[in-house]
């Protein structure tokens, strides 16, 4: 049974008590991400200063995987440069979709690598990826209030 690799302690606890679960009133970027089929629905708020994620928050509802992914993402990218975040995003997607994630990627991801268990649950890949897709969308332009759907 791979369930334990999917629903790891860290994931379950971030689901229960998510970090950065709040609106940023002074955000510079914002996006709305949803998975209409299963009802995952999140807003991400980002404050970029210079080339860095100065602050980040999210709000919404969704399954444990999507919520924990949002919590962990916000936690680990805060303070990082946009370049690094971009790399992390690519590595994250790689880790949840590909059999052999490169060592470099594992290193880039650090604790975020723990979502690799999702790989065995193809229907759940979208859940883990949703918040990253929303972030991508938020950062892609200057305008706020972007919608993104992964279905």
């Amino acid at each position, binding site marked *: *049974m*791979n*369930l334990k690799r*999917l*629903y790891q302690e860290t994931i*379950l606890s971030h*689901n*229960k008590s998510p970090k950065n679960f709040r609106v940023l009133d002074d955000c510079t970027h914002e996006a709305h991400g949803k998975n*209409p*089929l*299963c*009802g*995952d*629905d999140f807003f991400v708020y980002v404050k970029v200063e210079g080339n860095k994620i100065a602050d980040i928050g999210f709000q919404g*509802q*969704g*399954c*444990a*995987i999507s*919520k924990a992914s949002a919590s962990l993402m916000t936690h680990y990218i805060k303070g990082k440069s946009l370049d690094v975040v971009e790399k992390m995003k690519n590595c994250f997607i790689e880790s949840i979709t590909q059999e052999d994630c490169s060592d470099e990627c594992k290193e880039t991801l650090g604790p975020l690598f723990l979502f690799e268990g999702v790989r065995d*649950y193809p*229907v*759940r890949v979208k*859940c883990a990826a949703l918040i990253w897709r929303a972030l991508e969308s938020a950062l892609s332009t200057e305008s706020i209030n972007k919608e993104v759907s992964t279905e």
Partner: protein
Amino acid sequence: MTSLPLYSTELKKDFPVLQQTMNGKPLIYLDNAATTQKPQAVIDAMTSFYQDSYATVHRGVYRLGHESTAIYDAVRKQVSRFINADSEKEIVYVKGTTEAINLVANSFAGEFLQAGDEILVSEIEHHANFVPWQQVAKRNGLVFRTIPVNDVGELDMTAYESMLSPKTKLVAIGHVSNALGTIHPVKEVVKKAHSVGAKVLIDGAQSVAHMKVDVQDLDCDFYAFSGHKLLGPTGIGVLYAKKELLEAMPPYMLGGDMIETVGLTETTFAPIPEKFEAGTPAFVEVIGLSAAISYIEKIGLEAIEAIEANLLAIATEKLSKIDGLKIIGTAKNKAAVISFVLDNIHPHDIGTILDEYGIAIRAGHHCAQPAMTRYCVPATARASFSFYNTESDIDKLVSGIHAVVEMFA
């Protein structure tokens, strides 16, 4: 609470998929509202047709072709008896419920309704019985209104009556809600609609496999269902419509087999029901549908209703005892469909974890987003039963849910 007859356990053996394992566990299939499994008899009917006597219908002077055509037409009679239509001319073969409803939205509502006319649907309809009306309304300036349901999932008949007026031209309602299991009082709905001159379409996707349907007794104008939810194959469904309506309606699709003569400038159409069946039909699927109906009739819809009512009662009782579990939809009159949510656990997670135990349920909006909105949930978990399910399936579901709760504790 009596326990289930052995019968039900025996019936499971007719379904080859139910002998499979999933993730190393015996498969407990509880997604029957999405699609039902097929008895061996249905699979065999199609296989042997493909192997022994495949030829297309309606066109062959040769015997093989004629035999196909004869079967194809005989099944139409069988279907009309199955739902007690007045004539087999009232049976149109379509791809499924969705196509049937689109056909009516197009060739009836799209043709005969005028700006300002009203279409009523319940607020918990499946998208297939919601979006086509919403969009034809938008296109033609019709008024699209939703009939409210109460907190347990029952149609608000008082509200319905107050919405009816001479402007009401069509009422579209599910016989059984796929999201909540509610059995709507369709006969009454029809009667009231007719009293103001409105026609009624009943979405029978969730009913035909579970209860005796008599379209003449219901007096509905249209009735739609899918073969794949009726133990039959994918790719086939039925639209029943009263003869005079079919005769008045223009064809939906155009092509071979539905025309009488084609000239450079004018075309005359075939009589009903062929007028609505353009192109090579899914005739092998029709043969599968026939085998499915025969199988169901052999068991008998009364027996099926009894078995499923029992399953529903047992499952409702056992699930209700689980802490933090809330059943969405507890209408008095209900089919064996149970939508539920768990405190602080998303339905999607429930589905994944149960799957690991070999239990297939559905998690999501069940193509009924307006229903989710109505009950303020983003999604539900749904277990939907068929007569081939057993009490032991329910027990496994219950222990599965306990495992979910534990994991998130």
